[in-house]
């Protein structure tokens, strides 16, 4: 019996603790959730920082939270959206792990009257209200044009990417098209699978460079292969002979741009995606007289947050990424 008594005391303590915590909660708060397909990606932290800042700008009563699976799995992301819907949050910002899987969940949230705004990666088949993000084709295109600018028809390019996410496919497509348009003599020599990882990229790119010594440019279609490509070039002792076009501005990428191992990176604007996404969701949440009828307030359906090619001179603003508890 002692066992049971002790257990009951602990139980009571826990309950008391929990209820005091409940009392301290505010009352008129609005909650917005951000759902990403790779929890803890630096890129999405920038986006979340934008969301946090926009929420603070709107007012103290806005609460935000970040959710998402630890490994790339769109079905787990869909689950998070369903959970937020059941909880009845005031708005959801989501980035689609793949273009199709989340449609039903997004539509479910919209049907429940919760505004859903996509950012970074769109789910065009869903009823989502708006999308704020990079036009990935254009992003790839900018990179392709920059590479054409560097080497012209002499460009021999290796691309590092991994199969699956739709936005990566678009970037590669944009890259190929615009490179071909700007420098018809340029050539895509090989595309390798980096499995989405830095060390995977190192392994794959090193082998690629050995098999194809003519390669003089590496295009990283997402954030991780940039440092992997730099390590690969270092491995082979050909630093300076191969130009690397990285993607995004993770700290390791910035560092490598500073010391010259990476020539430039395609800078997206995740902060703006989160910031605009939050504003869009908030706007949609609050109906005005004019928008009456749709069930949602005013919002823009498509916002291109743009890219810029960042060289050594452009990276200072990104050196201090946001942090939060």
């Amino acid at each position, binding site marked *: 019996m002692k066992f049971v008594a002790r257990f009951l005391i602990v139980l009571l303590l826990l*309950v008391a603790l929990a209820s005091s915590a409940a009392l301290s909660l505010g009352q008129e708060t609005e909650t917005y959730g951000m759902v990403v397909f790779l929890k803890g990606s630096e890129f999405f932290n920038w986006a979340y920082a934008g969301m946090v800042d926009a929420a603070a700008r709107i007012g103290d009563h806005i609460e935000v939270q970040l959710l998402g699976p630890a490994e790339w799995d769109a079905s787990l992301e869909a689950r998070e959206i369903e959970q937020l819907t059941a909880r009845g949050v005031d708005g959801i910002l989501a980035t689609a792990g793949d273009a199709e899987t989340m449609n039903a969940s997004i539509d479910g949230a919209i049907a429940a009257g919760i505004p859903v705004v996509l950012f970074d990666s769109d789910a065009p088949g869903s009823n989502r209200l708006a999308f704020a993000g990079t036009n990935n084709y254009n992003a790839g295109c900018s990179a392709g044009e920059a590479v054409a600018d560097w080497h012209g028809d002499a460009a021999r390019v290796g691309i590092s990417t991994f199969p699956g996410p739709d936005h990566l496919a678009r970037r590669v497509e944009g890259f190929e098209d615009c490179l071909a348009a700007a420098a018809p003599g340029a050539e895509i020599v090989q595309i390798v699978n980096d499995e989405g990882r830095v060390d995977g990229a190192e392994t794959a790119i090193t082998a690629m460079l050995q098999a194809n010594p003519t390669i003089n440019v590496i295009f990283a279609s997402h954030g991780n292969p940039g440092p992997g490509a730099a390590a690969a070039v270092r491995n082979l002792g050909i630093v300076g002979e191969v130009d690397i076009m990285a993607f995004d501005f993770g700290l390791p990428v910035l560092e490598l741009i500073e010391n010259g191992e990476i020539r430039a990176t395609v800078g997206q604007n995740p902060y703006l995606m989160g910031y605009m996404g939050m504003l869009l969701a908030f706007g949609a949440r609050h109906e005005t007289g004019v928008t009456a009828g749709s069930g949602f307030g005013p919002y823009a359906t498509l916002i291109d947050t743009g890219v810029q090619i960042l060289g050594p001179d452009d990276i200072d603003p990104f050196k201090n990424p946001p942090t939060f508890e």
Partner: protein
Amino acid sequence: MHDMQILKSKQSDGAGLLQRFSLETLQIGGLALAIVVFAIIVQMNFPVFLSLPNINVMIVNFLPEAIIALGMTIVIITAGIDLSVAGIYPFSAIIVGLLLLAGAPIPLAIIITLAAGAFIGAINAFISNTFRVHPFIATLAILLILRGVNIIITGGSPVSGFPETFAIVGQRGIDFGTFLLRYSVFIWLALALLIGYLLRNHRFWRLSYFIGGNRRSARMSGVNVERYLYFVYMLSGALAAVAGVIVASQFNAASNSYGQNLELRVITAVVIGGADLNGGAGSVLGSMLGVLFIAMIYNAFAMSGISTYWQDVVVGAMLLASILMGEVLKRRRAN
């Protein structure tokens, strides 16, 4: 004439709580208690937690885990393990999707997919039986192969655009206004009740405990252990395929990304539910409670806004805590 008490087991007269109930009852009872306590605490902070719509979401979200856990429970009872479910699950979602896109009638597509799942299970059993390797290794090999196959047959992008009626399996349901009770929940319930009942009461299904408890003696009792393991792994594979079909219908899409770490979530749930990896112990009720417990933890994170970074820490700690509890119970009973 003969002193009979030698033949009686030690019956302690002052039997306490620990002695009065079987270990299984204690473990399941403890888990149920933990679930109730946890639910009360979360509920006090977030009143929406125990609302019907949220409970519904909790169940639907962990439906694949729950269905796969049914098979895993039997696998673990026979002292095996099946890692390949995390490969079969997306594989069958993709296969049913591709079949539907190719114009196969829905029932046929589903049947073929379930058969494919069972077939992969048979391969697991074949490798493990024929080459006498631990099922961990056999199913690991199949998991690795399937992950690659899944990427190859989809080219890495999701398969989607299934016929409207296919949505019945995983999307449609009974509309209660505030929430939609999906038919897939009934599929799970039916499977859980059926398998749970058979595992308790059916002569053939109960052999799994015998095999897991003492494989040699099962052999000596004339059980064809190898053939039985075919049955067990085929069942596990087929159930993973059921989960795959449901998820394909639910999302109206199928991608090779599905099922990351699924095998570990399922094994965690089954073990929290009282199954013994050494075989011979485990129950459907326990496993389902284990899945529920994990589902509640995940949902509470979505509820609370506490950084989900803590999620893994909490789930891992829960696993260790529940095992420690079970071990403590076992030892206190033994003394």
